[in-house]
């Protein structure tokens, strides 16, 4: 029987070998202000990046800001239900119209001289218009539009008005991730962390499982870094990271470890499990299918691997998914406006729970410069803290005169691929 055209299923076949050369990656791509400026000019201003969730824009006038490098964008729900983006800057004297964050407005009023703009960005009123002998052109002085499109409940913007459609840019991603039905998922945790590292160092930290054995040693009892699969597509990449399965380098390999029982099986109500590792995965998957309807979660289009493993996708340049059946961590790695040694890490945890009430949490802010950690703030506090500890030290180490290039291996192929795509953008802009 052939699948109907409507059937959603994440492709499981491996992508072709990308055939990348294992060349040294110059550290200056992480430390140089000149390189960061080239990234801004030729990559950040040309690519689609995620600005937030459409669920934060329920009624007309709801808005959130999106800070990308030196830019701030207003993303606003319109009276007709559409979502539009405009530059968050008064066209009179350049004042920012709204502080970073989300809120509700009937119109946007500049607090400097009181110029007013509609939800659609049109200039509505300027004080004492007769004092402008050159006139006040609504066409020139309304808030300039920014391309804005929505996929899977994620609002993307692109500063390039000539960019191709979001769907074209996403390439394979909708086919791979639409089976999760993310459009109905709810935000359960939301924070932004200023990290003292280049944005790519943070993307890199989540693009390989090679660091698990040293950085997150304790996770080897329930996740398998050795059998992790890496796939590189046109722009984007995937890693299938086995969970509910101990690492091949762990003493409990090929057994159902106490950690698997405690952190996976017992957590969803499977007590006193006896059986093989494969039976443990099957039981974990089966139990989630049983629980899902009570949360209003649709897991019908997910396979057994997706119910157990971390399907890790990176949408170029800066969006990372740790996709699971009932919860998913989504990271956005944003560049600092001026300093290549700093970045903003947005972390939202979304729940597949359209049938239950999940109060929208307020965003929390942290900084590694203050020694802030995520310990206890979400399910994976300790895991992320271990990465947060590494990242400023990686950035500091890169400044050593003794260190010139990143020396990457096959488990780090996604990092090589990320650099390849980035370089293609920079070369195209020359």
């Amino acid at each position: 029987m052939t699948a109907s055209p409507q059937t959603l299923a994440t492709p499981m076949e491996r992508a072709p070998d990308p055939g990348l050369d294992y060349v040294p990656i110059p550290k200056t791509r992480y430390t140089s202000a000149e390189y960061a400026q080239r990234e801004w000019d030729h990559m950040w201003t040309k690519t689609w990046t995620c600005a937030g969730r459409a669920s934060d824009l329920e009624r007309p006038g709801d808005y959130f800001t999106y800070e990308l490098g030196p830019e701030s964008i207003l993303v606003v729900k319109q009276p007709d239900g559409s979502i539009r983006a405009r530059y968050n800057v008064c066209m009179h004297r350049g004042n920012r119209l709204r502080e970073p964050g989300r809120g509700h407005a009937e119109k946007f009023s500049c607090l400097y001289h009181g110029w007013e703009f509609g939800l659609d960005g049109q200039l509505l009123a300027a004080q004492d218009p007769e004092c402008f002998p050159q006139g006040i052109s609504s066409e020139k002085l309304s808030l300039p539009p920014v391309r804005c499109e929505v996929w899977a409940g994620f609002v993307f913007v692109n500063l390039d008005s000539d960019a191709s459609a979001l769907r074209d840019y996403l390439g394979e991603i909708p086919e791979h991730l639409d089976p999760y039905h993310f459009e109905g998922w709810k935000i359960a945790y939301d924070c932004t962390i200023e990290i003292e590292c280049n944005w790519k160092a943070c993307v890199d930290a989540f693009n390989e499982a090679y660091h698990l054995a040293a950085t997150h040693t304790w996770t080897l009892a329930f996740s398998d870094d050795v059998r992790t699969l890496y796939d590189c597509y046109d722009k984007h990449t995937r890693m299938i990271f086995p969970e509910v399965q101990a690492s091949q380098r762990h003493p409990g390999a090929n057994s159902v470890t106490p950690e698997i029982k405690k952190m996976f099986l017992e957590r969803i109500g499977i007590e006193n499990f006896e059986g093989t590792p494969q039976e443990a995965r099957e039981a974990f998957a089966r139990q989630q299918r049983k629980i899902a309807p009570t949360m209003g979660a649709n897991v019908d289009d997910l396979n057994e691997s997706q119910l157990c493993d971390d399907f890790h996708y990176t949408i170029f340049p800066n969006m990372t998914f740790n996709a699971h059946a009932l919860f998913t961590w989504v990271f956005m790695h944003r560049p600092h406006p001026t300093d290549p040694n700093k970045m903003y890490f947005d972390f939202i945890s979304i729940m597949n729970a359209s049938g239950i009430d999940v109060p929208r949490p307020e965003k929390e802010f942290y900084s590694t410069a203050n020694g802030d950690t995520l310990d206890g703030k979400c399910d994976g506090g300790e895991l992320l803290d271990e990465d947060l500890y590494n990242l400023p030290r990686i950035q500091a180490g890169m400044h050593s005169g003794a260190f010139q290039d990143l020396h990457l291996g096959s488990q780090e192929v996604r990092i090589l691929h990320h650099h390849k795509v980035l370089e293609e953008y920079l070369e195209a802009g020359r």
Partner: protein
Amino acid sequence: MAEKRTEALRWVEIPIALPPSGRTETFSLGDLELLLCNASGTPYIVRDECPHVRTSMKGGVIRGTILECPLHGGLMDLRDGSPKGMPIRSSGTCFRVRAQGDRWQVGLPL
């Protein structure tokens, strides 16, 4: 132990209905312009004057106990009037609210 002293207040019935959750409505009592706020079912009353530029906050929306001024998006905590987001820098004025039967009352200074 000394008895806790409470400020003497004049309790006045609120003349308007509680707006929907998350919304605000203005009303007057004598010279006072007040804003009735519904924070997820809990009523709060503040002076209807943004601590930023002294404009009405009618139409402002509430998340949790935080009121967003509709003009510039400044944030204020309804529980104590404290500033929670720029451009509001100073505190607003809050008034106590109590239930009296099925009506709400606001406590005004004597």
